[in-house]
């Protein structure tokens, strides 16, 4: 889209400026002759407006030779050549305009000597270059506005992803099932019921506390995950086993909050819960050369039907990482021989940078 042709207000201002320029030519050009101003203006103003449209073509030169990526010499040559071609065309228009005016019975104009082609070139080249400069300016302005909008959009996407993650966190079915377990324990083992109430309360409180922060340590995130798994272990009994292995450097790494939790929840819901014999959810975390790698692994039943919501948690995490830093983060899911694994990796550039996401 042409930045001036495509914008009515800009086109108006642009043509008005050229109109004024045309009248100015009339005043200046009258100097040597006895021509009245009106007759001179009749000659210069339409020509100025015609050249206004010719100069709009400099936009395509700007597009073909972007300021930042074109060597100066090539930039100069292409602009000057375009300017000379444009002014030559203008000179031809000027030469053609004189007999037309004469035919329209303004014989006063025809009596003068025609304006030399060199005058068109002398005026046309700088005017064309000036117009190209304006186009470059507008292009730069639009670029910066676009960049601003993109930044804003990605911020909105990041917030949205976080909200979604938080909402997914407060999974109602997890609460319903946990309450049902507490209900059961209240009859048979009141002490265990109390412990589970406490655990559930701790888990919910920690979820809210971590969710309110921009960054947490992986250690804090693992604490949350272990609280969650302890509650699920009451529900699933011996079917759910847990193994967490994280190096001290990994635990100290900074991560966005509640990033791991949905992955572990998936491992339980779609992996362990769908297997008769259950299995072990394994979480491993290590840090090498500034890159934190977290693995969540669980066995799954390859024949199990796909349940609703499968892949949703993974997609949320992926979206959050992308909004955070698409270059230094990654998430990959793979399945081999009844084993499902998600590998998260968070690079240095992000984890050592400023405190805002």
């Amino acid at each position, binding site marked *: 889209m042409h930045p001036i042709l495509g914008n009515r207000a800009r086109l108006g201002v642009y043509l008005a400026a050229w109109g004024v320029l045309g009248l100015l030519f009339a005043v200046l050009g009258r100097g040597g002759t006895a021509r009245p101003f009106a007759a001179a203006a009749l000659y210069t103003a339409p020509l100025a407006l015609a050249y206004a449209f010719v100069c709009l073509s400099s936009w395509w030169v700007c597009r073909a030779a972007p300021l930042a990526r074109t060597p100066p010499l090539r930039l100069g040559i292409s602009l000057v050549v375009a300017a000379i071609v444009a002014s030559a065309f203008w000179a031809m228009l000027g030469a053609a305009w004189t007999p037309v005016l004469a035919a329209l019975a303004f014989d006063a104009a025809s009596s003068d000597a025609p304006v030399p082609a060199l005058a068109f070139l002398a005026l046309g080249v700088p005017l064309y270059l000036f117009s190209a400069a304006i186009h470059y300016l507008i292009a730069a302005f639009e670029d910066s506005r676009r960049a601003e909008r993109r930044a804003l959009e990605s911020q909105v996407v990041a917030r949205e992803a976080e909200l979604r993650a938080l909402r997914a966190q407060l999974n109602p079915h997890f609460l319903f099932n946990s309450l049902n377990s507490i*209900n059961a324990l209240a*009859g*048979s083992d009141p002490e265990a019921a109390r412990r589970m109430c406490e655990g559930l309360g701790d888990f919910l409180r920690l979820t809210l506390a971590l969710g309110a922060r921009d960054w947490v340590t992986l250690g804090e995130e693992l604490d949350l995950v272990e609280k969650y798994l302890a509650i699920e272990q009451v529900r699933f009994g011996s079917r759910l086993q847990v193994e967490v292995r994280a190096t001290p450097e990994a635990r100290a790494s900074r991560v966005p909050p509640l990033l791991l939790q949905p992955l572990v929840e998936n491992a339980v819901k779609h992996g362990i819960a769908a297997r008769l014999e259950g299995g072990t959810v394994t979480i491993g975390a290590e840090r090498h050369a500034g890159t934190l790698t977290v693995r969540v692994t669980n066995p799954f039943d390859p024949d199990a039907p796909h349940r609703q919501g499968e892949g949703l948690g993974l997609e949320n995490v992926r979206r959050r990482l992308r909004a955070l830093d698409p270059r230094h983060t990654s998430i990959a899911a793979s399945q081999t021989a009844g084993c499902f694994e998600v590998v998260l990796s968070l690079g240095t550039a992000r984890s050592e940078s400023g405190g805002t996401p």
Partner: protein
Amino acid sequence: MTPVLRVAIVDDEPPARALLRDYLQAHADVEIVAECANGFEAVKALDTVRADLVLLDVQMPKLDGFEVLELLAPGPLVVFVTAYDEFALRAFEVSAVDYLLKPLGRDRLAAALERVRQRLGSTTPAGGGPAQPGSEAASQLVASRRGPGRFLDRIVVKDGPHVHVVPVDRVDVLEAQDDYVAIYADGKVHLKTQPLADLSQALDPARFVQVHRSYTVNVERIVRIELVAKDRRIAILRDGREIPVSRTGYARLRDKG
């Protein structure tokens, strides 16, 4: 003295079973005849033990509650007990007496039991309840499992005490045999009590086409179709099996492209 209410509990979570057991103790007429931790156990147990009522969880490993119901011999009434409310409609479509949500309340279970007693009292004891999962209800069940735009992704088959779960993408062909459908998959044959048309309808029409009154074929298995006589065609499958294709069946296949 009220008659004894024979109850089976099916839930994969130990605390959930414990809670039901605990609540049921307060009802003097209830006798717990089976306690199963998954769908397989339930189908097996209810083959040998007669129950009046099954308290059935929905989301369980291998076989979900609806699949268990599909495989049960006619007889017991069913009350679903689950944390998910989205299966309620389906539950009543398959004639469940009640649908209870976790966390489960003592009074809510008592009310469900009362409904069960009334149902049992209003029918002849020998005839079992109105839920007949083994026969007519089965096709209804399959239909209801489909829902809009959803098709079966596996077929459950009961073979004596064994239960087979056959993923539909392993199925080569379905063949009508009297009251059964023979399901050919992975070089094995499974028999299921259901009309071929009903089962065919529950499958994704983009993948399964009924090519003949007695045959529904997985289109991915077809290698080529041969014309053997006027209007008589056979489909050659990947394993060399030859399946007759009727005129309408051929038209259906052609529509698929």
